[in-house]
């Protein structure tokens, strides 16, 4: 009798999967790490791992479309003479002119204004289009200080001192030379065509005690009118928030690892920082321990997508959330209608993230004048406003179902978790139990 070995089905490694193999080949071929835009793509515990406990007997719901559920938020009540009043607890995160086209920046301003919220400048300064179209504009004070101008400080409605970003806590940025148009080069005071490195730390202060003095300087320059935000990357949220409060922040922004960036190393985006979900409770804890919860407002950003995410972040103790990547999608980023053009760039709609190359078919993350023209700032602004309003309606719907007449009345008790990990991070019970893993630890 003859025995034949049966064929073995080819088996690919879980460790060396197709993407990993392609990255090894790419590194070997090009000699440079992958730089891309956007936020973390790997799956980590997120808001989807939480569920709301709608009211039945032990809670009394409010009637949708009948009973009021407010969404207003005031930011900067600690020191500023002119706090920010917003209609909705969703703001538009800082994204730079340079990274984005002028039309995209204008569209963000238009959309935010229609929806009754603020937008934010970015690395590269304030453009007249942006100021002109933004009813409420937050001016970012960044480590690179590209385009930093006291006139613009005075024109802003609030100042955000950026210390870190969720996509790259501890890291600077890199705007590759091909994206440096004449206008971008002029605003950043650098030659056209060279890689523009953004510093990872502020040049004129070296720690929280210095930051405290820096904030006083900014307040003195702007006559104590404007709220001062401090933005930190979600890495050590308890201590960073506590130090930001100590330094005098009116508002603290905590940006989790799903937060986007214009361009940085893929390995940085995917492997540095903590998930947004894991950052909220330590940040709130810091404020509570200092007796400053709701006195210093907390904005959470990093992967906020819909009204459920908004409601969950607020329930965990945030005063507002901020959207960046999602706002770009609302404008038209990665739209399947442009699939054929994405394929020419060796990618597909939904995966395009080489924003630093300046060839964005949607005309959003580019300085190419022809591509930029594709984005109608009025229409795109309308799309963003619709999206922000829908998210607000969704959050209101959930808040009413939990019996609240203001979205800020959502609380951790309204939530349960689907996984042990999410329960531990959000400090809410695992569904069907009263167990909160690790409660009490920071």
């Amino acid at each position, binding site marked *: 009798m003859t025995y034949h070995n049966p064929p073995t089905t080819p088996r690919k490694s879980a460790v060396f999967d197709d993407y990993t193999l392609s990255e090894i080949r790419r590194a070997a071929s090009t000699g440079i790490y992958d730089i891309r835009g956007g936020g973390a793509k790997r799956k980590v515990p997120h808001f989807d791992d939480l569920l709301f406990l709608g009211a039945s007997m032990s809670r009394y719901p409010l009637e949708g479309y009948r009973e009021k559920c407010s969404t207003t938020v005031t930011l900067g009540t600690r020191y500023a003479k002119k706090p920010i009043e917003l209609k909705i607890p969703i703001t538009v995160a800082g994204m730079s002119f340079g990274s984005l086209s002028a039309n995209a920046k204008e569209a963000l301003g238009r959309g935010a204004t229609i929806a009754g919220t603020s937008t934010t400048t970015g690395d590269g300064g304030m453009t007249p289009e942006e100021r002109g179209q933004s009813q409420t504009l937050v001016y970012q004070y960044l480590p690179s200080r590209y385009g930093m101008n*006291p006139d613009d400080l005075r024109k802003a409605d609030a100042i955000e001192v950026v210390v870190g970003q969720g996509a790259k806590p501890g890291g600077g940025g890199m705007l*590759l*030379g091909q994206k440096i148009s004449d206008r971008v080069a002029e605003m950043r005071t650098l030659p056209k065509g060279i890689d523009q490195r953004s510093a990872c730390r502020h040049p004129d202060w070296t720690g929280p005690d210095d930051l405290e*003095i820096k904030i006083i300087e900014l307040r*003195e320059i702007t006559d104590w009118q404007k709220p001062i935000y401090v933005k930190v990357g979600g890495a050590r949220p308890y201590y960073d928030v506590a130090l930001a409060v100590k330094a005098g922040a009116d508002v603290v922004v905590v940006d989790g690892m799903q937060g986007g960036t214009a361009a940085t190393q893929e390995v940085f985006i995917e492997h540095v920082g903590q998930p947004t979900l894991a950052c909220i409770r330590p940040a709130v804890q810091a404020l509570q321990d200092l007796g400053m919860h709701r006195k210093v407002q907390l904005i959470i950003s990093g992967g906020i997508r819909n009204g459920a995410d908004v409601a969950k972040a607020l329930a965990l103790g945030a005063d507002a959330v901020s959207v960046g990547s999602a706002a770009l999608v609302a404008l038209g980023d990665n739209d399947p209608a442009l699939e054929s053009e994405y394929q020419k760039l060796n990618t597909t709609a939904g995966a395009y993230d080489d924003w630093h190359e300046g060839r964005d078919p949607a005309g959003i993350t580019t300085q190419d004048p022809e591509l930029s023209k594709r984005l109608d700032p009025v229409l795109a602004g309308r799309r963003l406003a619709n999206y922000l309003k829908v998210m607000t309606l969704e959050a209101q719907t959930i808040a009413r179902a939990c019996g609240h007449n203001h979205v800020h009345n959502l609380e951790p008790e309204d939530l349960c978790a689907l996984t042990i990990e999410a329960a531990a991070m959000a400090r809410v019970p695992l569904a069907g139990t009263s167990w909160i893993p690790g409660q009490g630890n920071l």
Partner: protein
Amino acid sequence: MPTVDLATTSLRELNELLHKQGAGTNETQWEILNPKGRHAVAVGVDAPLNIDIKGPVGYYVAGMNKHANIVVHGSAGPGAAENMMSGKVVVKGDVSQYAGATGRGGLLVVEGNASSRCGISMKGIDIVVKGNIGHMSAFMAQTGNLVVFGDAGDALGDSIYEARLFVRGSVKSLGADCVEKEMRDEHLDLVDNILQRSGLNGVKPKDFRRYGSSRKLYNFNIDNADAY
């Protein structure tokens, strides 16, 4: 001439008074007494004022100055004239770290020494230091000119872009991508012009050596990885 005594007037009142002065103000001569190391003195001034600060100041004196001539009759803490846009700031004594950081225009004259990071990330400002400067000065300096009569510390001009550095004394070490360059006639004229504007006569531009970017790190290349 308005005189503001910080022993009896708050910093807030001082800066508010200065901010109220417009381009056409008649109150152009200001004297500030008893600063006693206070931070953020005369910051955000946006008018052609002449301001004499009679004593030492803390952090960020004359920060983001536009148009004003500000003289500190004493030493200054970190961040003197940071992000200055225009005008002139003179510090008669020494300055601490980050003097002239990110400055986009104007002239900063330090008659004493400057500590580390002098001119860090400078973006168009001219800085003259009669004494020495500390380490990491002109780190990531983009444009503008730094003129140093004395010595420079370690890593001068690390990751420098298009700023020009002129040092008369010794340089302990140069940072990544910073090299010594030829002192041509145009640079002699430039230094001479800066010295004249600084009111520092009797110094020969030819005594200075010029440093700037080799521009090898302007676009990333893996073969330069050792420089990072």
